[in-house]
């Protein structure tokens, strides 16, 4: 049985009169321990999709099933890394993670909970910043706190919504390596949302493009059968890598082109006679005006 399953899921926003369907007929099956990446354009509905898996929003049609049981609401069994970090600004790094740990493991004794919290903070290399508040952290550090919080909940499924979206390329690569390592260590079922196909391929077992909205739907699944651990540099030269990447990008581009509406208009050229620069400007007297060709009454043509 699939660990996580979406069946004919659709979702729209707006009043009934001017409703736009954001997601249309989404079908997805994820096996236990599988790492699935979903790639799509900005505004395609990726966050909407992951919120439905998390149970934060309800689908209009279709169902989300976790181990065959319909998802009715959010819960700590699906840890989520929000696109905008969603750390509580009045809590320190430690407290943000501890809030989740205390909530998920209420029957552990305090020492064990503390050790657990510290372990996950260490996992994302944030032990030195443990007592800082989110406002004192860089974007990448906040992101890692958010990841630590989601992982520390020891969820069955880890949902990550563009966890590295706001970062520069260098930090991004570092964190991708960290993700690869952590996921290797914990072997969780993961859904990663990203707008970077390379990132998706580098991290996942399977990559699925989400077509451009509105009415976005999932494209064909592409198996990323590349050996782990993967070497980022070597990856770029593998033909399989290039093939996957081309497939994903071609699907996305094609889906986007289909959405574009063609408009034809008459091209209107400016109707102005170029000024003759060889004639000196008169300082006084009649000023020269730009002349429209359509206004010229007589034209001298040299023969």
């Amino acid at each position, binding site marked *: 049985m699939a660990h996580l399953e979406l069946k004919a899921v659709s979702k729209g926003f707006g009043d009934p009169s001017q409703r736009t369907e954001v997601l249309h007929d989404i079908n997805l099956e994820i096996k236990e321990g599988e790492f699935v990446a979903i790639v799509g354009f900005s505004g395609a509905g990726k966050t909407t999709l992951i919120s439905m898996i*998390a149970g*934060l929003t309800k689908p209009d049609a279709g169902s989300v099933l976790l181990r065959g049981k319909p998802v009715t*609401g*959010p*819960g*700590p069994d*699906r*840890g*989520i890394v*929000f696109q*905008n970090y*969603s750390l*509580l*600004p*009045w*809590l320190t790094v430690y407290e943000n993670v501890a*809030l*989740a740990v205390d*909530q*998920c493991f209420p029957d552990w004794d305090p020492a064990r909970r503390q050790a657990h919290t510290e372990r996950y903070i260490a996992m994302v290399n944030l032990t030195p910043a443990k007592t800082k*508040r989110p*406002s004192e952290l860089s974007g990448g550090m906040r992101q890692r706190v958010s990841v630590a919080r989601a992982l520390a*909940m020891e969820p069955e499924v880890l949902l990550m919504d563009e966890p590295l979206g706001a970062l520069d390329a260098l930090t991004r690569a570092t964190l991708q390596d960290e993700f690869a390592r952590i996921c290797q260590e914990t072997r969780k079922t993961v859904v990663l949302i990203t707008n970077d196909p390379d990132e998706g391929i580098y991290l996942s077992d399977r990559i699925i493009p989400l077509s451009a909205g509105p009415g976005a739907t999932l494209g064909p699944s592409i198996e990323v059968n590349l050996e782990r651990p993967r070497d980022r540099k070597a990856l770029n030269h593998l033909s399989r890598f290039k093939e996957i990447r081309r497939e994903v990008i071609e699907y996305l581009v094609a889906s986007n082109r289909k959405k574009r509406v063609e408009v034809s208009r008459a091209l209107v050229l400016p109707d102005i006679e170029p000024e003759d620069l060889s004639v000196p400007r008169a300082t006084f007297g009649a000023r020269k005006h730009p002349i429209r060709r359509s206004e010229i009454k007589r034209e001298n043509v040299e023969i």
Partner: protein
Amino acid sequence: MKLLRAKLDWILLPMIGFGAAIAIWQILSVTVCKELPSPWRTWLESREYILKPFEKRGEMDQGILRFTWYSLILVAKGYALALLVGTPIGFLLGLSVVFTRIFDPIIQVLRPVSPLAWLPLGLVLFLGAGKQASELGALFTIAVCAMWPTVLNTAVGVRAIPQDYLNVARVLKLSRTKTFVKVLIPATLPYMFTGFRLSLGIAWLVIVAAEMLTGRPGVGGFLWQEYNALNYAHIILCILTIGFVGFALDRLMSVVERRFKTA
């Protein structure tokens, strides 16, 4: 050099303002309004009250800080009452649309009512309390008038809590009480404190009116009595005291408020 300049500006420029105000006061007192005591006369007549600020010579003849102290105590009581009542109302308004629909109109109607209008009603309400009536009436007036900024700011703060924070609570399956204590209250605190600061300002405004009408010992009561006794210099003394104390209170609350600014 630049730093020194900045510091000088800090002290010097406000001094110019105060100097100008005193100059205008002096000019007014010798030209237009002969009844107005000049700055120097005000000082001479008030010296007793300022230099022996805690002296008690009679019920209505005490050092200025002693009067201030009485006023502050009354304000503190009324203010505490305003916060205790106002904060929960604010939370209810922010959390429940139905509650807002029911009570928002009446709040909007009661909010602009002046303390001078509330006070007689307060006195009537506590007629049965005998000697305590004037204090209870004053407390009632302070609480009713000072409550609104707390109520409204708390409500706005609750409504402004980002959905993200609530989503975190939902994913963690925090219970209602835990969501309230761990998310709602901390997220609203900055707004609440803005409300608290504004409320304190109003409470201090109201105290003077309340004391004037009830004749209780305090800065306001003293002011009114001295007006009736034709000691105009003391009116100015009271005005300045009220102003400086109000300013100090506001500064104090600003400091507290800033401590709770999260973001």
